[in-house]
């Protein structure tokens, strides 16, 4: 199903959304300028944000104790989004961000209470002369929190993709478990990837990992796929979808995952 069709009947939120219990259905927000989301103690919700207009969005999320929130960000226009999430103890945030073309996503997560966890999966696909940026900053401000930020980028044509990751661990944030990973695929000689995976650690009992790679298409895999009957374009596209696809599949709702994958495939045809 097309994304637009899928979200047509969903509840829309504009400036303010307060969740007190468990919201079963996902809600959607279309290119919001300012949006504040408050998930009360023990509450659970799913928010989809579609940036389909060239606009600046500012989001503030607050997860109270034990709250959980899933956020899916999708950029289909040249939008600038800055998001800041504050998480209290035992809360859980799961986020995906998919940039299909020029866009800028700046995501900051503050783990303020003990035993909070966050997982951010970010993807950008750029072609032509596009320029995408993804920043994920996780601030571990309390002990026993876990975070995972995984970003994958694919750049073709003369495009530029940029990832900036930061895991900050404050002095009191003992027993932090943080993982930061960025992998990229360059499709052409003139495309460019910039990556800055960073750690800043002031506590002494922590487990933190970070890494970044930039690679090219696996020609052996393309050959293998062609030997089974796919043409070169198909083989390349399948490989790219395989490279970023599993991150997109983290978005909780199957129909939504499929719709986003379909948009990604359409995007790849233009790259």
């Amino acid at each position: 199903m097309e994304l637009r069709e899928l979200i047509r009947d969903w509840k829309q939120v504009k400036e303010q959304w307060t969740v007190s219990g468990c919201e079963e259905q996902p809600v959607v927000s279309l290119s919001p300028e300012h949006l504040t989301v408050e998930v009360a103690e023990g509450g659970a919700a799913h928010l989809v944000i579609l940036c389909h207009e060239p606009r600046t969005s500012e989001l503030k999320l607050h997860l109270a104790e034990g709250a959980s929130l899933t956020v899916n960000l999708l950029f289909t226009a040249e939008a600038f989004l800055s998001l800041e999430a504050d998480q209290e103890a035992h809360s859980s945030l799961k986020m995906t961000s998919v940039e299909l073309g020029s866009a800028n996503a700046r995501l900051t997560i503050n783990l303020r209470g003990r035993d909070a966890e966050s997982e951010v999966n970010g993807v950008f696909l750029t072609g032509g002369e596009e320029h995408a940026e993804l920043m994920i900053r996780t601030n571990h401000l309390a002990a026993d929190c876990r975070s995972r930020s995984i970003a994958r980028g694919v750049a073709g044509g003369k495009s530029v993709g940029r990832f900036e990751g930061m895991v900050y661990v404050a002095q009191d944030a003992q027993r932090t478990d943080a993982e930061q990973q960025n992998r990229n695929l360059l499709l052409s000689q003139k495309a460019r990837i910039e990556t800055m995976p960073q750690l800043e650690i002031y506590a002494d009992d922590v487990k933190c990992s970070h890494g970044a790679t930039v690679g090219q298409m696996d020609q052996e895999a393309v050959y293998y796929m062609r030997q089974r009957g796919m043409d070169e374009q198909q083989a390349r596209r399948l490989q790219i979808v395989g490279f970023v696809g599993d991150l997109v599949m983290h978005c909780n709702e199957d129909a939504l995952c499929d719709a986003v994958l379909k948009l990604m495939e359409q995007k790849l045809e233009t790259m």
Partner: protein
Amino acid sequence: MLKVKDLHASVDGKEILCGINLEVKAGEVHAIMGPNGSGKSTLASVLAGNEKFTVTQGEVEFEGRNLLESSIEERARMGLFLGFQYPVEIPGVTMANFMKIAVNEQRKFRGEEPLTAAEFLKLMREKAKVVELDAKLTSRAVNEGFSGGEKKKNEIFQMAMLDPKLAILDETDSGLDIDALRIVATGVTKLHTEENATVVITHYQRLLDYIVPDYVHVLYKGRIIYTGDKSLALKLEKEGYDWLINDYKE
């Protein structure tokens, strides 16, 4: 089905195949043996259309068509299957998805309708049995995290799915334990009919206990220097290649 005439091929300017002649007819099984570096895998790659190699001379006819003018995927769609010596891992692409696209591409080429999801699942379940492939593997990424044995079983599973006219199996037996070898070889035998043909490239006679060849060819320095029947493989196992190579030098 396949006619190879005076085939020469090189990589980075170095000639690896120096005049191969080979004819494979429907219903036949051919084994290609030979010492390391004799050009066995190169022959398989050149027939599959691997762009790393340059054909400098010769002709290859497959099902009445000029094979050398066809792209890798056209050859595959015409019914040429290569079982890889080192099957490639494709992260993030599930076996099921990969096979579905491959099967439907080949059907499209033959002017057939694509399989529905239900038909495809049924086919996949049926064919997984040929090589006792764990059905769970089909939901995993192509070859990713597969054991050596599973990778080779997976090659034969793909062969079963695609039902090729000509299957070239490049050292499908290497790296297999006795049980996996039996399963893989029995699978290949099950798939053999009077309408298709198989070329197995191997170092070891033991594979040929299961897949009984009509012809055994010895490849040496890019040429087929000797052709015999299945008894040749036994003799090679016992005596090695020296007697042939010495004959050839003289």
